[in-house]
Every structure is written in structure tokens, then in C-alpha cells.
């Protein structure tokens, strides 16, 4: 041991010390930032938080009352988005990881599309939602059914738009989970005479549940705070009553915040409301995240 110790020069030790110092400073800075951010919202916003604030609709041009319709709208939006996006994302990930030859041109095209999608600004998704979901899909349905139900901004199209926006996150994390399933498990299943599909459904997917949930969590985190993408596809700044169908329009916490801070006749007056709304938006994201994390940890134990 003596010889080992003597080979570590004091210079090296100093270098090691600085490396640790730098990382510690970075960590402390990040934690400090987080705390001060949440602190601001908690301190400034909690005064406004009350049961009425959480359960009532806004009044008097959004300057009084609560934000319940926005909480409701955001929750339903995010749930619907998950319901639409996760299955499609999972299916794509299954194709990429299980069926596609890694060298195949089509698989490379899909991968390229996914990566590109991840880098597209969210407002572009909003426009895409108008053009594709509302006009093409919704308008198409209306044409066929001779109605006027689907060809307009709605909760459904906003969810679908967000689902597309969050697809890359889902695909990447699910594919990662699928690839992490040991080759030995797949081979054991196939060697017992299972078909490829049986192997996927009985061995690969059950082993990737936590990855699929991680994908959902990330998608929820990304989707819940997204405003730009839903601007044109269904969100409104005030509502007579809560949406009762997926073809209704809805209120949204993030958009509400935007409205409060830019569109209000008296922005100063709405400042406490803004902080409180932010607090609720953060809280909601946490609740959605933690419930998914909870489910995941429960599944892991089995």
C-alpha cells in the first residue's frame, strides 16, 4: 500500500480535489436554482391558493374566482394525450427494436423522422394540428357524416397534437427499454417454440413495462406544460361550462397563465393569480408524474 500511496503525486490529488469541487458547485447551483424557483411560486402563490380557487370558475374577465376549468381541461388533455400517444409510440418502438433490420432503409427513415420530430418547434405542431387533425381528419369525418362536429378545434385534436409532439420521447424511451431485455430471455422463449409475437407479448413487453411508463412520464411532463402546440387546436381563454365531450373546447393552465399575464386589462391585479396558477400547474405535473412513478415502482417489485 505504501508504494501505491507514494505514486499519487500531490499534483494529481489537487486535480482530483478540483474535479470534486467543480461538480459539487454545479450540483449546489442547480439545487439552489430549483429551490429559489419553487420558493418564489410557493411564497407568492400560496396566499391566493384556496379551495374556491381550485374548485370555481374564473369570474370578472379572469381577474377573480378560480381556475377549476383549466385544471380539469389540462388533466383530461394530458390523459387523453397519453392514451393516444403511448400505444402508437410503443408500437413504433416495437417495430424499430424487434422487427426492423438495423440497416434497412425504412427503419433508418423512421428513426430520422423521430429525431427530426423531436427538434421541431412546438408551434409548428400546432399548425400541423390545424391542417391535419382539424381540417383533414375532422373535416373528412364531417364530410362523410354530413355533420359539423369534428372539423373544429377540440379537446380531441389538441390531445392528438400533443400526442404527436411527445411521440419521440415515448419512442426513444420504450425502444431503450425493449433493447435492454436480455437476448437470452428472447432466445429462451423462441427456443421453447414461441413465435416472435408471443415472445414480444409474453416476455419482452412485460419486461419493459417500467420503460413504457418512463416514456409516459416524460411525455406527461413535456405535454402538461405545452402551450404553443395547442394554441390553435382547441384551447380557449374562458368557458361557459366544462367540456362534456372530446369535441368540446377546453381551458388549460398554461394557456390561462399566458392569458392572465398578457391579455388581462389589469395585469398587476392578476399577478397573484398567475403565481397561484403556476403553482397548480407544477403541482399537477408532479401529481401525474408521481402517480406514474408509483405505478412503475409497484410493478418492479412483482
Amino acid at each position, binding site marked *: 500500500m505504501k508504494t501505491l500511496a507514494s505514486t499519487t503525486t500531490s499534483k494529481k490529488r489537487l486535480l482530483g480535489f478540483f474535479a470534486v469541487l467543480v461538480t459539487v458547485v454545479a450540483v449546489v447551483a442547480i439545487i439552489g436554482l430549483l429551490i429559489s424557483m419553487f420558493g418564489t411560486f410557493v411564497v407568492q402563490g400560496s396566499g391566493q391558493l384556496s379551495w374556491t380557487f381550485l374548485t370555481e370558475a374564473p369570474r370578472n374577465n379572469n381577474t377573480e374566482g378560480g381556475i377549476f376549468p383549466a385544471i380539469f381541461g389540462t388533466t383530461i388533455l394530458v390523459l387523453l394525450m397519453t392514451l393516444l400517444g403511448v400505444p402508437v409510440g410503443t408500437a413504433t418502438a416495437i417495430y424499430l427494436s424487434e422487427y426492423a433490420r438495423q440497416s434497412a432503409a425504412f427503419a433508418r427513415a423512421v428513426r430520422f423522422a423521430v429525431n427530426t420530430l423531436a427538434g421541431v418547434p412546438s408551434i409548428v405542431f400546432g399548425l400541423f394540428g390545424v391542417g391535419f387533425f382539424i381540417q383533414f381528419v375532422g373535416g373528412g369525418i364531417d364530410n362523410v357524416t354530413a355533420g359539423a362536429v369534428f372539423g373544429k378545434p377540440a379537446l380531441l385534436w389538441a390531445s392528438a397534437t400533443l400526442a404527436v409532439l411527445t411521440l419521440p420521447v415515448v419512442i426513444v424511451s420504450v425502444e431503450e427499454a425493449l433493447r435492454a431485455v436480455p437476448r437470452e430471455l428472447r432466445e*429462451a422463449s423462441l427456443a421453447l*417454440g414461441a413465435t416472435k409475437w408471443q415472445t414480444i407479448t*409474453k416476455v419482452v413487453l412485460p419486461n419493459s413495462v417500467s420503460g413504457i411508463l418512463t416514456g409516459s412520464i416524460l411525455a406527461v411532463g413535456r405535454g402538461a406544460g405545452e402551450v404553443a402546440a395547442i394554441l390553435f387546436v382547441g384551447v380557449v381563454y374562458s368557458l361557459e361550462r366544462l367540456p362534456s365531450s372530446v369535441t368540446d373546447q377546453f381551458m388549460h393552465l398554461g394557456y390561462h397563465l399566458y392569458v392572465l399575464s398578457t391579455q388581462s386589462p389589469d395585469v398587476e391585479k392578476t399577478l397573484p393569480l398567475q403565481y397561484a396558477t403556476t403553482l397548480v400547474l407544477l403541482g399537477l405535473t408532479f401529481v401525474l408524474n408521481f402517480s406514474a412513478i408509483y405505478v412503475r415502482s409497484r410493478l418492479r417489485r412483482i
Partner: protein
Amino acid sequence: MAKEHPVKVRTSDFSVYYGQKQALFNIGIDIFDRKVTAFIGPSGCGKSTFLRSINRMNDLIDGTRCSGKLEVDGIDVYGKEVDVVTLRRSIGMVFQKSIPFPKSIYENITYGLTLTEKRSKDELDHIVETSLKRAALWEEVKDRLTHSAQGLSGGQQQRLCIARAVAVNPEILLMDEPCSALDPISTGKVEELITELKDTYTIVLVTHNMQQAARVSDYTGFFLMGKLIEFDRTRSIFTAPSKKETEDYITGRFG
């Protein structure tokens, strides 16, 4: 080489390529029904490749090709009309790195059984018990069949994987270094098992353990750099090998 037993697996001029790289060169061999055939040879000589060719496990690797003939019961395994899934069902495989499914012990055994048909609980119970008994594991796990198989020791897991393969009642059992991660006691149990199972199954065993090959096998094949150098009764191979390479290898003078 007297052939007192029918041939189960027969290859002629059988070669395997991983992309550009040739891994097996013109293998010609007769593997006899209900005998234990051991394959020995230095690392990378193609033992696993050959074993995995028999149940077409190599199909899973992109860019693998083979040429020549490989027949099981006279049927060309790589023929167009062969259904790989059916083929694999009649050829069990035990891997070097045994991983039970992350399911219960019971479900591990019934996995292969429930793939094609629904079976009654009684029937499943019965097969689970007999398979575990065959794998000499029943006494150790009978009280915790519903527990996760991942709670078993390494040796128990390996025997569970054998039980899992035996449960679907295959005709051939391929074992790729089944004891390489086991302690001597577990190894002894698996070897005993192999000796018992050969009454029912044709067993092909890859091993790095020369004593093991000598103890449990009836026939031994020696591979070197993708070629089958020598194939004969185990006794002949170990007492009077006809090739110098074989002799060098088994006497440890190799390399």
C-alpha cells in the same frame, strides 16, 4: 464406428457464415438417437454455432447464412417447407447463461406448454411436477412454486431451465455449456440428470470440461477453427485419438 443406434441429426458438407466470416467448414456428422454427444474444442471454434444451427437459432442473427445439409429425422431443417416454430418446439435448448423468465417457478415451466394449446390446471400441475422431478429440483422448490424464479440460486436456476425445456417434451436437448457457471455439487446434479435424460432424449452437449465430456457422453466431437477434426466414441477419443490435434487438445498440449 458401429451404428447400433438410428441417426437423429445428420449433416453433410454443412457450413455457416456470419456475414463474410465463415464459422463452420463442411461439417459432416451423425448424431445418434438417445445418446449423449459432446462437443469439445477451444473457444471460438464453432461449437455454439453448430449447436444453434440445429434448432435454427442462428436465424435470429442478421446476416447469417449456411450451406450444405442439416437433417433431423431425415428432414432438411433448412428446407423451405419447414416451420421454424414447430422445429424449435421439438428441440429443447439449455443455454450457458441460464435466465429464468421473471415469472414464478410454476409459470416458467408452463411457458412452453401454454403457447399452442389451453391445458387444464390438473394437467399443468402434473407436468410441472414431473418436469421438476426430472430436473432434480422438485424437492427444493415444491413449497414455493408461485415464488419468483429469480429468487433461486444459480444452480437451481440452471436446473429450472432444464425442467422448462423438458416440460414441452422435445426429442432433442441441446445444452451449451450448461455447467460453466455452476459449483461442483450443482454440476454433479446436472451431469446425473443428463445421464438419466438420455433414455428419452438425444442430448447434444457443449462443454469445456474434458472430464465432463468423458463422464457423461457416449460420443465426442472435437472442433478446431470451425472444422470438425474428429468424431468418435468418447472412449476412443479420450484413449486413442486418431488425430494429432485431438490428442494435443485433450492432453492439454494445445496452443
